[in-house]
């Protein structure tokens, strides 16, 4: 891999970010006077991680790295980074902690990660460097505690000169013109450009650059969206032709951002075209007549575009939350589904009808014994009981264990006296706390 082979070994080999090198060196040399963490943000391939790696190497620091493929919840951060950040170095080595892609610390999966990170940044005994693609994706509390450095997209000329060095060293046959085209279409992403060069072999002909470089960069979809809302023209549909997204996904991108561009009647008209586009997509899928896609594409791009007045103004576009929400709620949806399936099986009904049992079941859960008895019938496991009632699940589980200890009663009617006695005792309790309980209960019920 050329990318690894030509990874910069020292500052002089880092391309196009000379002013920033000085700024970062100054920060690290006077570390402790200023903010204790550094946030480097900028587009992919602009050299953020490279910079940190060269820095630690040149200055003789140990680099402790945690990137997005590692789990970064509170516990992991405290274990790995927390230790490193608090301990002064053994044997006099100095450490730099690198948290790559800090904008990808997720609320759900990396639970508590953002909070833990903030604490670590405030108290660290060693320099911490965070990298991110977008400034806005990092929480404000963290931004406020970091020194900020922005990496700009590399210029095509800068990318070109590095490609040229590599091509000469590798004895790759290529004309400057072609090399420049590869540089241009990389959109300032040096890593991508080197990979493209790498994939074309040792004898590169004119026009070969067209074989590579069609990355599904988010930049291009953002550009296309920006034209869509600023042009008021049906011709804008052409902007979307090269974007490598399936039409149903593209529709969600447009759907997500349309309310940012339009209000009132315009918004309604635009949503109408989006809705119609979705109908054509479904017709295409259902009849397997994919020529229907063109109507969907025209309506979602040109249609939504002509609704507006045109004229350019700044909109901050974002990717659709649709997949994000589906992803982060997957676990709860699955838990709910198994619960409903269990109910459906026992009560001879569909999961849809099974939902109507949930309010009743969650009321029975207010009384641990009743909760245990009904859970036994549906064969709910602990996780499922917890899902239905996060507050009372321990009590129900205890009561369930009690039931196991008692000698089994075969005759169902013989349960009744025990239960009735139990009921009157528990009732007073539940009457007293009725209102309070209902408030807490409410949430559980509404969750369904």
């Amino acid at each position, binding site marked *: 891999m050329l990318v690894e082979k030509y990874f910069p070994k020292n500052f002089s080999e880092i391309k196009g970010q000379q002013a920033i090198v000085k700024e970062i060196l100054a920060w690290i040399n006077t570390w402790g006077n200023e903010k204790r963490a550094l946030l480097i943000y900028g587009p992919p391939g602009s050299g953020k991680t490279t910079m940190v790696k060269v820095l630690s190497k040149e200055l003789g620091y140990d680099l402790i790295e945690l990137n997005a493929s590692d789990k970064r919840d509170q516990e992991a951060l405290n274990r790995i980074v927390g230790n490193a950040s608090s301990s002064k170095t053994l044997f006099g080595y100095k450490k730099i902690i690198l948290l790559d892609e800090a904008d990808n610390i997720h609320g759900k999966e990396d639970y508590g990660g953002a909070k833990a990170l903030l604490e670590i940044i405030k108290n660290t005994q060693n320099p911490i460097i965070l990298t991110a693609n977008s400034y806005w994706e990092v929480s404000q509390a963290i931004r406020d505690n970091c020194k900020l450095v922005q990496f700009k997209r590399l210029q095509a000329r800068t990318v070109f000169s590095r490609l040229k060095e590599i091509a000469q060293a590798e004895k790759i046959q290529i004309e400057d013109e072609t090399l420049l085209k590869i540089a241009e279409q990389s959109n300032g992403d040096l890593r991508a450009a080197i990979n493209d060069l790498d994939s074309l072999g040792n004898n590169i002909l004119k026009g070969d650059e067209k074989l590579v470089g069609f990355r599904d960069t988010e930049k291009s979809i953002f550009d296309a969206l920006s034209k869509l809302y600023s042009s008021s023209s049906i011709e804008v549909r052409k902007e979307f032709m090269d974007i490598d997204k399936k039409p*149903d996904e593209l529709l969600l991108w447009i759907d997500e951002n349309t309310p940012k561009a339009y209000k009132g009647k315009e918004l309604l008209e635009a949503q*109408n075209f989006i809705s119609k586009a979705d109908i054509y997509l479904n017709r295409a899928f259902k009849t397997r007549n994919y020529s229907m896609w063109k109507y969907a594409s025209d309506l979602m791009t040109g249609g939504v575009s002509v609704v507006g007045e045109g004229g350019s103004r700044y909109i901050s576009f974002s990717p659709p939350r649709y997949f994000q929400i589906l992803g982060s709620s997957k676990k709860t949806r699955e838990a*709910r589904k198994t619960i409903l399936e269990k109910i459906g099986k026992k009560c001879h009904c569909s999961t849809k009808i099974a939902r109507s049992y949930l309010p009743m079941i969650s009321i029975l859960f207010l009384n641990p014994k009743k909760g245990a008895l009904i859970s036994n019938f549906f064969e709910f496991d602990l996780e499922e009981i917890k899902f239905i009632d996060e507050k009372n699940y321990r009590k129900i589980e205890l009561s369930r264990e009690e039931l196991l200890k008692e000698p*089994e009663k075969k005759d169902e009617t013989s349960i009744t006296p025990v239960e009735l006695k139990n009921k009157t005792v528990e009732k007073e309790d539940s009457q007293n706390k009725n209102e309070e309980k209902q408030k807490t209960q409410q949430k559980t019920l509404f969750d369904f």
Partner: protein
Amino acid sequence: MEFEKPWTEKYRPQKLEDIVGRDPIIRRLKSYVDKKSMPHLLFAGPPGVGKTTAAIALAKEIFGEYWKQNFQETNASDERGINVVREKIKDFARTKPIGGDFKIIFLDESDALTADAQNALRRTMEVYTSTCRFILSCNYSSRIIDPIQSRCAIFRFGPLSNDAVKVMIKKIAENEKIDLKEDGLNAIAYVAEGDMRKAINALQASAGIGDSITESIVYQVTSRAKPEEIKNMMKVALTGDFLSSRKILQTLLLEQGLSGEDIIMQMHRETFNLEVSDKEKVRIIEMIGEADFRLVQGANEFIQLEYLLANLSTG
């Protein structure tokens, strides 16, 4: 292991004659028991009116001790693909009945089957008719393709009468030794709207909260079961706040996994409770109707319901 059943199961009638409020239907079904033979049946009617109960009771009476071996229950709304018909149903249909001439496949919510699946089903019904009878249940018989309807004896289960609901609820209350007040009983019948499942669940839930069941306890329990969020979503949209209403929609549809169909049904119901003029209500219903239509035609429920919210918020 000791357990307690939900009362809908504990008190599900096991014999045809125990089913309340369905006399004409029960008489016809009993004649099948006497003859030990029956045609394919189609039970049409809203939820909670006794379709499944009648099917199970019929199977028990026809097959006696072998009823479980000769009776298969499949829910089409959860397994709606054509493969259910091709595999699960066919496999059961082609095995021999035990201790009798035929067996029964009960296909619940069969109006959820796609048209393709229904056509496959029609063939299966013909091919295995010597060893297998079908009981199809559905909410709307119009959603069942004509060729299937013409092969079935059709039974229409309307909503149960208030009196039939009350008879059953009283019986359960007595057996469970619950102090059920007269106004509590009336309230249960009122909220149940002829749906026995709803009535019994309301009774059991009420018994879980109060010592004696009064009107106020019943309303307290049943109002909590109502999805307030859908009403709330409509209200927010009607104030013109499209983005907030869209957020609620994301929660309902994507996080909680409600179906678009359920949401639109609730929205339609809630329209009558909105504090707007009747003219406005009619306009809203027209919008909901259009959205319902598009929901069926479209691919993504979120996008279609979102358009409805845009409509509501533009006014």
